[in-house]
């Protein structure tokens, strides 16, 4: 039954989903060695015998990563195990230097928590957290030749810079009862995780760089008949869509899987339990390896590492360092800033909340800060294809810019030019205003001269104004602004024109 819509699919079926989020920690060094944990270096320059898995090398746990994992676990309401172990997950793949990944298996450090996720309309959904465990990231394969995939490639290159980068994997319990809001809840859940890791300052939370990555499990089951208990209906077979790496992609992937699975089920075909690859360009998924013949990872306790045994005192000390829950923080800021629901949602979706907060902190009024970040700067970021925080402008710059406007030093138009200068790396707003000579012309004699010149060029205008057609002054204001390259205060120019015409403004 092709052509089914998402809404139609959810009229017939009840979705159950779960999400595994991998968070790359922003520790200075890798999980088990002293190599720098930094994105974007030349391939294989941040490697050592340990993360290359050379014979004889041994891992040592990065205590900062343990601290980050525990703080994250506490933020998710998890219990922290008094003694937890690392385990080896054995599988052969060239980007896994040792051909086993050091992870946690039956004794994750953080387990059984829950997270309140606030949807756009304020509805709160509580998501059960099964575990949050530490592990190391793999390296990165690049397939050369062909289409960039492994099929048809002439050879592959491996970059081990990412190998050994610390990760925390957060696994939810199956999430039921979200019905037609399933995609929204999934998106909001990942957004909340992202906000939390940023608030904790344990990850830069950049989904586009892969520092927060999601795998989405989804299954459908028939809707319970009226009066029957939906939770009594057994789960269907699930697919696991790997590497869904933006909030929008999460929604799209869920839409796609809901429709795909519903179509199969309605056609009487089984849903295969398998991993699937997400394709951003087509908004669709394709099958990966089948879970039915899943690899046996032969987990066993990592004998090269001692158990992780955080003291109760330390855990409590870390609990004291936790920031406010992002949803609570948002409610507080919305109140303090006097933003509308829409303003707030747009700012959150644009990932601009902390930028606005920092701008307000630097002295700008909230609405002004919002206007800059969500207007001019959002457009620029969009044009450049980067995120707001990638722009070469700081909240302090924005606050300074607004101060210059408020003080009448520049007007809005000049402020945009000043911002352009800041973005071009010409210095702070004040410096750009000075170097580009952008101050508003406030010297009346200069303005009067410009007005007289404009009136002389358009002699009929003065008569029109004197006839009561005051709006005709606009033409002269425009001419003066042009003559002063926009640096005049338009209001003052208008006053001078009216004074010249001998009428009241």
């Amino acid at each position, binding site marked *: 039954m092709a052509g089914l819509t998402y809404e139609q699919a959810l009229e017939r079926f009840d979705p159950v989903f779960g999400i595994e989020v991998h968070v790359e920690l922003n520790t200075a060094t890798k999980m088990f060695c002293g190599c720098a944990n930094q994105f974007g270096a030349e391939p294989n320059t941040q490697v050592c015998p340990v993360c290359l898995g*050379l*014979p004889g090398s041994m891992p040592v746990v990065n205590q900062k990563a343990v601290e980050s994992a525990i703080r994250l676990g506490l933020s998710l309401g998890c219990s922290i195990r008094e003694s937890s172990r690392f385990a080896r997950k054995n599988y052969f793949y060239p980007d896994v230097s040792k*051909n086993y990944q050091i992870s946690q298996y039956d004794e994750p450090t953080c387990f059984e928590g829950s997270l309140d996720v606030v949807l756009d309309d304020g509805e709160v959904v509580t998501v059960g957290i099964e575990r949050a465990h530490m592990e190391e990231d793999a390296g990165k394969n690049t397939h050369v030749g062909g289409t960039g995939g492994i099929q048809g490639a002439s050879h592959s290159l491996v970059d081990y810079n990412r190998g050994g980068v610390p990760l925390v994997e957060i696994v939810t319990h199956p999430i039921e009862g979200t019905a037609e809001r399933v995609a929204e809840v999934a998106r909001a859940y990942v957004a909340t995780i992202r906000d939390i890791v940023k608030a904790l300052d344990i990850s830069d939370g950049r989904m586009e760089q892969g520092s927060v990555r999601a795998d989405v499990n989804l299954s459908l089951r028939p809707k319970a008949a009226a009066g029957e208990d939906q939770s009594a209906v057994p789960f269907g077979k699930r697919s696991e869509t790997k590497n869904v790496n933006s909030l929008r992609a999460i929604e799209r992937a869920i839409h796609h899987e809901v429709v795909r699975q519903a179509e199969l089920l309605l056609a009487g075909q089984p849903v295969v339990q398998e991993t699937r690859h997400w394709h951003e360009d087509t908004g669709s998924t394709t099958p990966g390896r089948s879970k039915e013949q899943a690899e046996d990872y032969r*987990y066993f306790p990592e004998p090269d590492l001692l158990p992780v045994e955080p003291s109760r005192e330390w855990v409590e000390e870390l609990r004291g360092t936790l920031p406010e829950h992002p949803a609570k923080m948002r409610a507080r800021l919305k109140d303090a800033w006097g933003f509308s629901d829409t303003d707030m949602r747009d700012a959150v979706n644009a990932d601009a909340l902390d930028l606005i907060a920092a701008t307000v902190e630097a002295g700008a009024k909230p609405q002004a800060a919002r206007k800059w970040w969500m207007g001019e700067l959002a457009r620029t970021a969009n044009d450049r294809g980067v995120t707001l925080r990638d722009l070469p402008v700081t909240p302090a710059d924005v606050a300074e810019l607004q101060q210059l406007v408020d003080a009448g030093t520049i007007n809005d138009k000049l402020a945009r030019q000043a911002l352009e200068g800041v973005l071009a790396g010409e210095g702070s707003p004040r410096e750009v205003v000075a170097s580009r000579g952008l101050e508003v012309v406030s010297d009346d004699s200069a303005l009067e001269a410009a007005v007289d010149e404009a009136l002389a060029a358009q002699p009929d205008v003065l008569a029109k104004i004197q006839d009561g057609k005051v709006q005709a002054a606009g033409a002269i204001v425009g001419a003066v602004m042009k003559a002063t390259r926009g640096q005049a205060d338009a209001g003052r120019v208008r006053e001078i024109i009216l004074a010249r015409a001998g009428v009241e403004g």
Partner: protein
Amino acid sequence: MTDWTRASAADMAAAMRRGEVTSVELTRAHLERISAVDGDVHAFLHIDADGALATAREVDAARDAGEELPALAGVPIAIKDVLVTEGLPTTAGSRILEGWIPPYDGTVTKRIRAARMPILGKTNMDEFAMGSSTEHSGYGPTHNPWDLERIPGGSGGGSAAALAAFEAPLAVGSDTGGSIRQPASVTATVGVKPTYGGVSRFGAIALASSLDQLGPCGRTVLDTALLHEVMAGHDEMDATSLDEPVPPVVDAAHDGARGDLSGVRIGVVKEISGADGGFQDGVKQRFEESLEHLRSMGAEIVEVSCPSFEYALAAYYVILPSEASSNLAKFDSVRFGMRVEKGNVERTMAATRAEGFGDEVKRRIILGTYALSAGYYDAYYGSAQKVRTLVQRDFDAAFADVDVLVSPTTPTTPFKLGERIDDPMAMYLNDIATIPANLAGIPGMSLPAGLAEEDGLPVGFQILAPAREDARLYRVGAALERALTDEWGGALTAQAPELEVK
């Protein structure tokens, strides 16, 4: 002219301090000895004459300049090929690593370099330390200097044979189930497996991470203690390394050599002392005589029982292959070592491993892979870990009553090369007395107890102590060594047949 290769490391160090000999002379003497006899013995896989002499020259120059030098500075040493050495080939006895030159030093290598000991070369071993005879080396077996037709023990047969053939006064070994102690036993040398965590494993190519321990090998108890102090101590690169002071092993060796063991309680472990048969008569005889010596020095000898030892061998042969199957996964041709190109990466990995690994390695990888597989894990790995706990409890109970435990190191004197190569079980049984110490993480020593009457071949005496009490091994070992060498009129190695010098 003195043949310095026959001297102890302690005597060499003292002679250098007195200016009677230089490190260059000592190093050259050993390199010449290696040239003369190693064609027959094959203790070495790689010899670094230039590197060793360069270190020796530096030490001599430093001594001439009046510099303060470490105790063993200038004394040459051999290193088992399991330990990575920057710039020196390291193969772990496997063809899969042929030609690999490590870009880094293991911690023990660093400590040996810091102790300014010339490194003569890398010694032969069973491939990845899997074996009791060196017959599983990818580069051909080592021959026992006592009888070139016989095994030198394994996996560290190269290190032990180098000592017995006077090719080196000291050597580094590694002991996962007896690979230091059993070779020491069958070559009439001394070998110590320290407490687990006492010596850093960083840079030791892993066989079974929870059992492996690097340790010192020498011809005398004191020499072994001196090397133990060089190797041991906390290392932040090894998470399982003990963060405690090194036990006073050299003091203990001096103390023991005074021959007074009053107040020391020694337990003979019934299960590994041949009480139920399976041990060669000559081995039991020399063991009993050693007990008499200990008694005569004031020690009290009692029999103790460790009933779980019955299952130790079986548990060991589940845990070891399980860990090894994972540890050896990295040998895949992608980043280092041999590569057999076969179209795609998967086939290349498989072909490389098929060609690069020997049969014993493959046997254990298959065993371990099976034991860790879903559905079998609890029955095999899980049960083996339980046995391990029981073995530890047996030791705890025994050590609550006695200071050290003793047994023959091996059930027999060295067997003939080829004799057990097709019978893995017979080979495995050779380690029955040494394996429990690895399962429990406790320290153990083997030292010469004499020659078996029936074949004139070396018998080893094993001493075991509680974890962290390595010093006890040296005290009791040095006392027994003194009593026996008094009886023999010198070291047992002096009685070894002269090798043909070529």
